[in-house]
């Protein structure tokens, strides 16, 4: 609908100045580098704006472009900086430029996140880990899964931190990805079996019975649309968890890929929303993008503060009535344990279930002594170990019941 006046005004701009158009194109490229979704239509509209005289004052042009190019709050907030840097030559806050820019993908902090060896060999193993479209139906029929289980058999009970050889780690990662896929198919099937309508829909009943002259023979019931289960994963990426993050990141990648609705967050001293990065098809590239966001990973953990950020900024959007929040952490809180308790209570009110996976729980002689985990436990619905693939598999029946 915005196309009506666009072509003619585009010509106008050409008459006014080719230079401006060139510069505008460069600006659009800059925006795209900064993860703005800017298409051709936006370019045309921008030209229209310049032709309409918005370029007389930089402040006005900035405000106009901001409305045109932003699509979400994050864009809205970083736009001014980018605009000033490009058109007015002011220095931009470095953070807004590196976010989402592909060049930074080789940042060294990647090492702290992914397993050292998963880095290189990972790129060649991609093809056999991600189930291709061809074997997806096979998986559903059950055969594929059986085969998968047997391949991972010898590894299911080995603690992740004791897996030393690259092949073993690779196998564990692949098994985690397969597990995520299997969980999704089964959950969905159970969803369908339970659906039923319960209230009469009068208008539709009449509509459906028009062919009987309006005599209501066939009744139409109002059906409640079942929301699919949504899984929100909060993964602890602090130093104390470093032996486990690799496998869980892989598991989360599988979950995001296969669940229709899933969100992932990473936390250490800050909380980062990583769903977008994890939706990358290729797991190695997903890890690369993740590493940019996880600056500071491997340090202490401020679970309470991160949960506060989550409850304030994200909870309303990502949590609905059929949401299971899965926290993967050892519960070593370096911040305020009281705050953690309070935020867990808030979170518990909002979502259906909280599952806390603690890899340390599988260790011999472990007891939940840390102040953080003690404060959090009263609000947790399921507290389970997650140090082996077997313990991850055992979660599935629980999630299916939700």
């Amino acid at each position, binding site marked *: 609908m915005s196309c009506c006046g666009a072509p003619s005004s585009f010509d106008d701009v050409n008459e006014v100045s080719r230079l401006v158009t060139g510069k505008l194109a460069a600006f659009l490229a800059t925006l795209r580098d900064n993860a703005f979704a800017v298409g051709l239509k936006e370019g045309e509209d921008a030209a229209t704006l310049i032709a309409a*005289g918005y370029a007389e004052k930089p402040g*006005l042009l900035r405000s106009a472009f901001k409305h045109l190019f*932003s699509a*979400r709050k994050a864009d*809205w907030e970083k736009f001014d900086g980018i605009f000033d840097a490009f058109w007015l030559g002011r220095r931009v806050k470095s953070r807004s430029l590196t976010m989402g820019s592909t060049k930074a993908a080789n940042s060294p902090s990647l090492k702290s996140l992914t397993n050292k060896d998963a880095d290189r060999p990972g790129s060649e193993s991609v093809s056999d880990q991600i189930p291709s479209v061809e074997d997806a139906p096979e998986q559903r029929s059950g055969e594929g899964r059986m085969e998968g289980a047997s391949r991972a058999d010898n590894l299911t009970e080995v603690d992740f931190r004791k897996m030393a050889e690259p092949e073993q780690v690779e196998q564990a990662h692949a098994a985690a990805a397969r597990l995520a896929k299997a969980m999704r198919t089964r959950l969905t099937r159970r969803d369908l079996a339970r659906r039923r309508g319960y209230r009469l829909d009068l*208008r539709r009943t*009449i509509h459906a019975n028009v062919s009987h002259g*309006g005599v209501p023979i066939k009744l139409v019931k109002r059906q409640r*649309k079942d929301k699919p289960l949504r899984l929100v994963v909060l993964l602890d990426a602090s130093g104390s968890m470093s032996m486990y993050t690799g496998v869980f990141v892989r598991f989360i990648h599988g979950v995001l890929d296969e669940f229709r609705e899933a969100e992932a967050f990473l936390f250490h001293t800050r909380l980062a929303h990583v769903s977008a990065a994890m939706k990358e098809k290729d797991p190695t590239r997903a890890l690369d993008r993740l590493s940019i966001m996880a600056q500071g990973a491997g340090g202490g953990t401020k679970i309470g503060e991160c949960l506060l950020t989550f409850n304030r900024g994200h909870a*309303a959007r990502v949590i609905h009535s059929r949401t299971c929040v899965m926290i993967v952490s050892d519960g070593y809180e370096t911040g305020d344990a009281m705050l953690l308790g309070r935020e867990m209570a808030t979170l518990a009110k909002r979502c259906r279930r909280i599952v806390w996976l603690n890899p340390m729980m599988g260790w011999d002689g472990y007891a939940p002594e840390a102040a953080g985990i003690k404060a959090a436990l009263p609000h947790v619905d399921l507290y389970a170990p997650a140090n082996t693939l077997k313990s991850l598999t055992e979660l599935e029946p629980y999630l299916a019941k939700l």
Partner: protein
Amino acid sequence: MKDRDQIAERLAAVGYIADGELATAISLMQLLKRPLLLEGAAGVGKTEVAKALASVHATKLIRLQCYEGLDQSAALYEWNYQRQLLAIQAHRGASADDIEDQIFSEKYLLERPLLAAIRRSKPPVLLIDEIDRADDEFEAFLLELLSDFQVSIPELGTISAITIPHVILTSNGTRELSDALRRRCLYHYVDYPDVDREARIIMARINGAGPSLALQIAGMVENIRKEDLRKVPGVAETLDWAAALVGLDIRDLHDRPEIVHETLMCLLKTHEDKARFKPEVTARLLGKVA
């Protein structure tokens, strides 16, 4: 631009105090003929923008409130089956073609908001409220309508828009909207107003609120928003509170601190927030207000 200042002035004349950026957004909306997507916390006045815009243009406001399960028959059009059946009974004996021509005519069509919005001779303001509450499927359907502005009804043919409405969408962020919809729209993030603007909003909306009281109320609300609250009060709550204070005949907040404290129920809407606001807290915040 003159255009933009004019819009701000005209909005102010109908009681909506807009900031410069919102005025720009509205002028762009008209220039580029794109819908405007407003996001922001609950109670910052997103819906009010549409109402004000309708009075500025002296046109009708057509509102589509979204909810889960909203579908085409509730949003676009539906045949009036009851009347159609009656008509068939009444014209028994007439030829089938005649009856068909009759019952599939405009008379038997129920217009829902989206169809109504494109069939008016003067472009109305179409407010699609809380689009985040509708399902993904509806969002996709809406996207199609917003780009073509035509509706095809199998029995009647394609109905094209007579005029293109001014479309405003609002979202509270309970669900992530699709990128396609976001790209289609201009975007404006509505934030809580600053003290000065909030005071002007109070004066515009509440009869009997003088400048000094309005500034005090706005200052107090700003301080309350900075506290650690479960539910941050929006502009609507501020207006309620201002109306309460004016109704209780308060001229200066410092005169009657106990009434100020008691009327805070207009602003604090959860048990925890209410419990946290002891009289000392109110007194401390009141101390910061000139």
